[in-house]
């Protein structure tokens, strides 16, 4: 494995996105293209990120471990620590940045793009996992319950895991 390329893939995914799930489309396409990840790694890592302490974005560390062992996890950690430091720069120019009309457009446009690309990746994850009546029902139910905001996502995942262990194993 070429560790420099590996690190740069992770760094880019965090630097050019925002939020915990932002890196997903990048990592999904780049790591699969290099042959360094299997489809199932992404669901595995995302699950660990939901359960373990700290930001959900630490799913990237889990993905680092799955794809590159301990060195992979540590490189992934470094790659997600560096970009948020840029908030210091942002803080300095925040007031000026805020007043440009184009700034809000760039940020809103980024969210739209994250949404569009994100849906494509979610669709791929879903299909590669296996399409059946049960998986469709799980996706639809969790989407509805998560939207209602009344059920913590951790509980939704636990329920889905139980259903999977009983009927999908």
């Amino acid at each position, binding site marked *: 494995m070429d560790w420099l390329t590996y690190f740069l893939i992770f760094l880019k995914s965090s630097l050019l996105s925002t939020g915990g799930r932002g890196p997903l489309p990048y990592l999904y396409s780049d790591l699969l293209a290099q042959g360094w990840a299997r489809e199932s790694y992404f669901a595995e890592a995302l699950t660990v990120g939901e359960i373990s302490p700290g930001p959900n974005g630490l799913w990237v560390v889990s993905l680092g471990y799955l794809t590159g062992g301990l060195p992979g996890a540590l490189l992934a950690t470094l790659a997600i620590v560096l970009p948020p430091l840029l908030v210091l720069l942002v803080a300095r120019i925040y007031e000026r940045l805020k007043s440009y009309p184009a700034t809000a457009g760039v940020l809103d*446009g980024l969210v739209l793009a994250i*949404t569009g690309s994100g849906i494509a990746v979610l669709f791929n994850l879903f299909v590669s996992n296996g399409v059946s009546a049960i998986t469709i029902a799980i996706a639809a139910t969790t989407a509805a319950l998560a939207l209602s905001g009344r059920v913590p996502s951790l509980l939704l995942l636990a329920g889905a895991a139980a259903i999977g262990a009983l009927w999908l194993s």
Partner: protein
Amino acid sequence: MASSSPAAASPTPPPSLLTLFRIWLTIGATSFGGGPATLLLIQQNFVEKYRWLTPEEFAQSWAMLQFAPGINLIAVAVLIGRRLGGTAGITLSVLGMLAPAVAITIVMTAFYTRVRELPQVAGALRGITPALVGVGLALTWRLLKPPMRALRKRGRAQVGIGIGLIGITLALTAAGVPIFISYLVGAVGLGFVYRNPIPQQKESGS
């Protein structure tokens, strides 16, 4: 005359670096349940319990975060760290939050790789994956609300452009075009639209 009005109480003087580090370590080690749990603990400790930050300061930090790349909660740790302890505060805050959390994440992943061959575990993952997709769709919907609200204020044509951009970026990614191109299309596209709005501005005094 008001000698001790709790409502007007200014934030308490900043903690020692050691205390700051200890609090972040505790947050990083105990916030099982990912981001929501972590955010809650940060708020409880720094705003409510010790009052080193006012709720307004905290809300302002949040607003600024949408301009920053990467994981928002790490940027929060950076901002709080600088506010309470300068450069050393930043280092200790980020390190304190992440060291235990990253270690636990790695241990959990390592444990998972030992049991992933078990049929029940494999089945559980096949059940979890569509749930992650469902939760992801809900997150996407929520993420989408503020920009769509902003577009609606700007008129019907802009809403159409917004929906068009979602469709284009979705199609680009599905076609295997590099993600960066998608993000560029979205950011530049809407940045241009906001700079050159279709005129229907209404002044509302505030």
